[in-house]
């Protein structure tokens, strides 16, 4: 079914956030988003509804997966842009590096759950895997991330909730 261009445009900020978590640096992430948007329009006919957001995140997950395979473990270049608010640069580099060390199959459910706020059921649909697999990958992602971030100096964080 035709997709609503305005709704798609409204998803761009969140898609960029997810892509940054997948790709690490800004220009690689925006390339993924650009490809994702173009594919979404090209594949419009395959959209069966009802919700655009998970469908587009599924496309970005696919684009990200293949792009990451191709990059063959390039080092993370977390851009340190002073204009960025939020975490301090050192924290950002540490966290993005820890993320990039995770396999895609763990990084994607982690970001979708922890940052994008999808339900586990939605994540299973987005990634095309059973919900039990989502849970076990999340569990492994969190364990690995905990190891990587242990001892790293994480500063300038606001507490959530």
């Amino acid at each position, binding site marked *: 079914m035709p997709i609503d*261009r305005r709704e*798609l445009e409204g998803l761009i900020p969140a898609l960029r956030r997810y892509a*940054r*978590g997948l790709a690490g640096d800004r220009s690689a992430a925006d390339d993924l988003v*650009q490809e994702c948007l173009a594919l979404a329009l090209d594949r419009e006919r395959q959209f069966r509804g009802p919700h655009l957001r998970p469908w587009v995140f599924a496309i970005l997950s*696919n*684009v990200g997966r293949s792009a990451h395979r191709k990059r063959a473990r390039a080092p993370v270049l977390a851009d340190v842009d002073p204009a*960025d608010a939020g975490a301090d640069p050192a924290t950002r580099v540490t966290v993005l590096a820890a993320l990039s060390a995770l396999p895609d199959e763990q990084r994607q459910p982690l970001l979708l759950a922890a940052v994008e706020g999808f339900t*586990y059921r939605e994540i299973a649909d987005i990634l095309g895997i059973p919900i039990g697999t989502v849970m076990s990958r999340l569990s492994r992602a969190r364990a690995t991330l905990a190891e990587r971030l242990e001892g790293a100096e994480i500063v300038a964080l606001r*507490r959530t909730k």
Partner: protein
Amino acid sequence: MTGAGIAVTDADLLAYADGRLDGERRAVVEAWLADRPEDRLRVEEWQRQNAVLHAVLDPVEREPVPPELTAVLRTAPRRRALPDIAAAAAVAVAFVAGLAAGYVLWNAPAEQASLKELATVGLDAHRVYAVEIRHPVEVGADEEQHLVAWLTKRLDTPVKAPDLSAEGLRLLGGRLIPSGDKPAALLMYEGDSGERFSLLIAREPTARMTSFRYTEAGNVGAFYWMDSGAGYALSGPADRNRLLRIARAIYEQLDN
């Protein structure tokens, strides 16, 4: 103790950390955690991870969206109006051939790579040849018939030189250039103030129609896309609107 008899799994703990449990189940997990400091530590660690990830990634959401991303949404060429039955048949064929809808997505990377390369080759060629005063092309527009026949033969795909006079551009001519290990055609056009635009045409046997993509480097920009059997990149001065108008005109003329 509420729910002492109900096993709390890792999945419950994860859902608790992510704030996904309803009241009743949450109470069960909280009761469980009260007696189990090691699980509580894990849950707290996970919540700290969520906070860290939000702190690092949320600012991205507040950045201004780069114009080339919104441009993608404005520049998608209209799909050909297929009769409904033909469209349904095409979808069915694509579906069967792909074994599953996932095929189209999995197939995307190769397409993505050659598309991007098209833009790079086009931009590079434009930078090299568009500045040539005396020899911008190998075969001039005065020999257009010969030019088109020659390029068609070398590319093994029909090459036409679109008429861009409605856009204020006249054909200067064209040349053969390498694109990867294959020959490609570069047609050059010139406007009234001497501004030049190049159209790269490369044979892409497996190409399916894509949207227009835009890229820019320095003061040169390019719209690039694929249509059945060929890839195109239009490069010129980085004026997105003008480039887009010209790209549309080309797309429409070549679309049959």
